[in-house]
């Protein structure tokens, strides 16, 4: 088992090492090596997962890494149903996307570098999933952040891409500072970084509540950054500067889900603290609604899907905060499939349309039938309609929120469902139905791109059907297990249908002109189009402040500290030259001074 487990992340790592050291000049070979690496991971992950489904268990392994005095910081891996599920999701989505990229990235000069970075990402993400201690988790966490930086800025000659990569790294690192402080606090209180030992310490009440709440909130800071939750969500829409397959893999299906995964994996820290859970729930619920409203007014196909990702991750956080461990993990899985699918469809459209603007599309249904059908399947799953996967997981989340008894959060969740359906089908109707534009070059994407899409579309349909088995395997004892409530289900489905219907009325039937709507609600529209001006707010406050402080410290350095030093130097030189005046070299002057001194001394004494 352990060898298989280690091979899962190491296969892509080896691919990365070979590509970056030897085959950077050979595009096809690099592509092959990278796909081979992740295929091995997938096969092994499936094997591990099947074994676990047959006989559910949880095993932990341990390797020495740092050992000083009595202190140990080992590398630890855990294989339980949760990590096995993530292994399969990550390697499967990664494989689909790497195959898709053969078509999408065809002819790109940096192809070998691209596959090298994807392999490094797969390694880091798989390591993150397997981590069973804080040090290793943090390391993998930072490494996936690095890969995200490298791949967002893949087309580095574009200044906007370079800036977006940097922004993503820095914004998430701001959250990571909190995460790091949380880890330090845990180490101070428990003397260990191992998840299982910390869990033991908490269950033995060695660490108690105010401290646990602080730790949980600090760790959640990292999750807020990675999972692009409010107020650190600003990096994810910009990250769409990267190649679309990257958006699908990293910024939709896997890395951004790491924040949710972290919170789920460390649920034992959150559970004892009501305050921490409430913060998770409110940030999640607010982000879900907030991002959904922004998505309404965006015209960039990728940005719409990006805001929907932020919103859906908020949904998962909302579930976790409401005590719904299983629903959150379930939605994490289904969302990975349908969101990757939606991004690949978006990529397929962009690939043939050569534009990101939804208004440049129109009538693509006939020209790109496979893409369109895949998009409908992904869209219905996202909107949460049965029998698609998203329905089952989202339904469980809504149930949990309902059972937790928080009316405000429940209201926000249902409203979000309406908005989600609306913006998803706004996108669909504008791009795929209606009149064709005069540009006739549009064509269906090649098989190498559509095949992964079809596979993901199937998964977006069926992956929701395993709900009972899923909750049998992945659950925690203390978490909430709500009973099915038919009314809640009816409510959420009708909200989704209402959203789709409204979108149909406005954007397909055009009963209500969307321009008129925009004019009528001009202030709101401009608020949403400009994403509540949060970027501008940060730009004029935080960024300015840091720049200002930096300039002040430079000023202090030049004029105050160094000024003092140079001043001392000049003063010394001045005294030196003043004293030099005394050294006249004339004997009579010296004798005069001697006598004068003697007289003064005699006068004093």
């Amino acid at each position, binding site marked *: 088992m352990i060898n298989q487990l280690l091979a899962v992340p190491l296969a892509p790592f080896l691919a990365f090492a070979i590509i970056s050291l030897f085959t950077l000049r050979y595009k096809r070979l690099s592509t092959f090596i990278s796909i081979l690496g992740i295929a091995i991971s997938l096969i092994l992950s499936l094997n591990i997962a099947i074994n676990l489904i047959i006989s559910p268990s949880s095993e932990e392994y341990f390797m*020495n*890494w*740092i*050992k*000083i*005095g*009595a*202190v140990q910081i080992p590398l630890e891996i855990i294989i339980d149903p949760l990590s096995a599920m993530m292994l399969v999701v990550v390697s499967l989505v990664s494989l689909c996307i790497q195959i898709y990229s053969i078509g999408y990235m065809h002819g790109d000069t940096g192809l070998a570098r691209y596959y090298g970075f994807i392999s490094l990402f797969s390694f880091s993400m798989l390591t993150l999933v397997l981590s069973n201690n804080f*040090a290793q988790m*943090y*390391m*993998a966490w*930072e*490494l996936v952040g*690095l890969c995200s*930086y490298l791949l967002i*800025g893949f087309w*580095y*000659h*574009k*200044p906007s*891409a*370079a*800036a977006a*990569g*940097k922004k993503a*790294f*820095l914004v998430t*690192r*701001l959250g990571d*500072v909190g995460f*790091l*402080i949380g880890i*330090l*606090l845990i*180490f*101070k209180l428990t003397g260990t970084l191992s998840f299982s030992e910390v869990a033991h310490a908490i269950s033995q009440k060695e660490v108690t509540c105010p401290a646990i709440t602080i730790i949980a909130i600090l760790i959640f800071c990292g999750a807020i950054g990675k999972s692009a939750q409010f107020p650190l969500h600003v990096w994810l829409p910009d990250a769409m500067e990267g190649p679309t397959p990257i958006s699908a893999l990293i910024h939709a299906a896997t890395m951004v889900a790491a924040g949710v995964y972290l919170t789920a994996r460390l649920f034992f820290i959150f559970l004892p603290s009501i305050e921490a859970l409430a913060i998770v729930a409110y940030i999640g619920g607010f982000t879900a609604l907030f991002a959904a409203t922004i998505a309404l007014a965006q015209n960039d196909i990728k940005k719409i899907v990006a805001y929907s990702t932020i919103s859906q991750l908020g949904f998962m956080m909302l579930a976790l905060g409401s005590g719904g461990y299983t629903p959150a993990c379930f939605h994490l899985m289904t969302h990975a499939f349908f969101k990757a699918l939606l991004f690949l469809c978006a990529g397929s459209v962009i690939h043939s349309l050569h534009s990101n603007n939804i208004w440049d599309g129109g009538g693509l249904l006939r020209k790109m039938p496979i893409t369109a059908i895949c998009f409908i399947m992904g869209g219905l799953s996202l909107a949460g309609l049965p029998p698609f996967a998203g329905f089952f997981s989202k339904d469980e989340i809504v149930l949990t929120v309902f059972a937790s008894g928080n009316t405000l959060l429940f209201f926000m969740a249902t409203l979000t469902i309406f908005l989600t359906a609306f913006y998803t089908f706004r996108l669909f109707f504008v791009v795929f139905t209606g009149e064709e534009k005069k540009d006739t070059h549009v064509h269906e994407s090649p098989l190498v791109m559509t095949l992964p899409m079809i596979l993901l579309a199937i998964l977006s349909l069926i992956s929701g059907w395993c709900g009972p088995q899923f909750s049998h395997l992945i659950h925690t004892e203390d978490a909430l297990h709500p009973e099915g409530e038919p009314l809640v289900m009816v409510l959420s489905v009708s909200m989704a249908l209402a959203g789709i219907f409204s979108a149909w009325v406005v954007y397909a039937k055009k009963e209500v002109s969307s321009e008129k709507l925009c004019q009528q609600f001009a202030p709101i529209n401009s608020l949403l189009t400009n994403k509540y001006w949060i970027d501008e707010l940060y730009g004029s406050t935080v960024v300015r402040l*840091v*720049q200002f*402080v*930096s*300039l002040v*410290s*430079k000023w202090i*350095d030049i004029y105050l*500290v*160094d000024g*003092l*030093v140079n001043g001392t*130097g000049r003063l010394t030189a001045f005294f030196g030259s003043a004293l030099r005046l005394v050294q006249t070299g004339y004997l009579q002057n010296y004798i005069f001074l001697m006598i004068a001194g003697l007289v003064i001394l005699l006068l004093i004494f």
Partner: protein
Amino acid sequence: MDILSATIFSPLVGVLLLLLLPGNKTFLLRAVSLIASLLPLAGSIFLLSFFDQKNPNFQFTENLPWISSFNINYHIGLDGISLPLFLLTTVLTLLSIIISFNIEKRLKEYFISFLILETGLLGVFSSLDLFLFYIFWELVLIPMFLIIGIWGGPNKVYASFKFILYTAIGSVLMLIGIIWTFILTHTFDIVQLSACQEIPLNVAKWIWLLFFVGFAVKVPIFPFHTWLPDAHTEAPTAGSVILAGILLKMGTYGLLRVNFSIFPETTMDNSLFLAILGLVNILYGALTAMAQKDLKKMIAYSSVSHMGFVLLGLSALNVIGINGAVFQMIGHGIITGSLFMLVGVIYDRAHHRQISGFGGIANVVPNYTAVMGISALASIGLPGLAGFVGELLCFLGAFSSFSKITAAACFGILIGAIYTLNMYKDVFFGHLNEKYAGLSDLSIREWIALIPLMVFILLFGLWPQLILNITDPAVQVFLKFF
């Protein structure tokens, strides 16, 4: 003469040979200096292979009477803290000599200065007698002064005098401290002085302060740091490499070897003070680095920030913090060494170092971009690379002693990422500055100098125990006092 002495003085063999050679035989001068810097490297590797990692005491010791009327001995030896620094010195000096092959002005004197410098550094890291320590300490000063003052940039005279005045003031204070210690104890021997009981605490705190200021100038600790940006900016590439890579570590090494081991109680009283200074260094250095427009100045201030981590780790006075501090010294030596080399590479080609003066050169010089990328990422503490382990251990150690200060220091890693990634973006990404469309990538000689550093950055990042196995037993000795 034993192997340790032979290693320390082996560069001087090269000096003698160079003196005999005429100054215009460039090839011969390079060959002799290269061999002369290979000798100490071979010696230090030999020492490493015979070093008993389990033994916490000083090894390869030599103790000969030197000036017996003052009880001054030629006492040298290595423990797990000095050995890694000793190796760092021999490796970085060799690579600095390789990177300096393109120097045209007074090549002979240049190499002589470097080899004398190496002997001085090796001596500092192995002296176990305060007087001997002081002699080697001063021996380092002169060649460095010449290297900045003769082979430096346009403002070299100002920079070199600032460097020598600053450090000379530090040395004077240290000398007073050494003499005062001798008056009270009648010995210069660091081993005998360790946890010395003969110095009353109210005097010890003043002697501690004298030593502290002497070392603080070298580290450099705020507000004694302003010599560093000037010296770095004006020094030739290899000068900056040695300056940042090794000379700064003399300061923190001295703190550990003298202040910590001779005056443990005073050190404990002052640990909060050390932690605060560490925090100031980290944040102030990083913020000032952010406002720099010159590549070398930016890296120089980043050194101020990264040495702050060392100080913070030391202030913890526990096993993790001090091991972390020593690890950070080595990690920073390698990483900054490679950063300064890389700045030198681009300066040789473009003849300027303005960050905003480049742009989009990643496509033109892909190898250079990659190596700079690895070094920059190591410098911002990316896991898997050497910078991360030192930072993590310093934080872990310091947090249990000074939680709030350490938590504030954690923001240093964010500011570090800001200026480093800004620099990287402005130099390598975006539209190509057409002036540099013809820039040539790394030459073979530059590769040879950089590859070992890249290997170490990765090796120590992935396998930190390589260093920690050596440092830990020696650190345990210190901990007995705290």
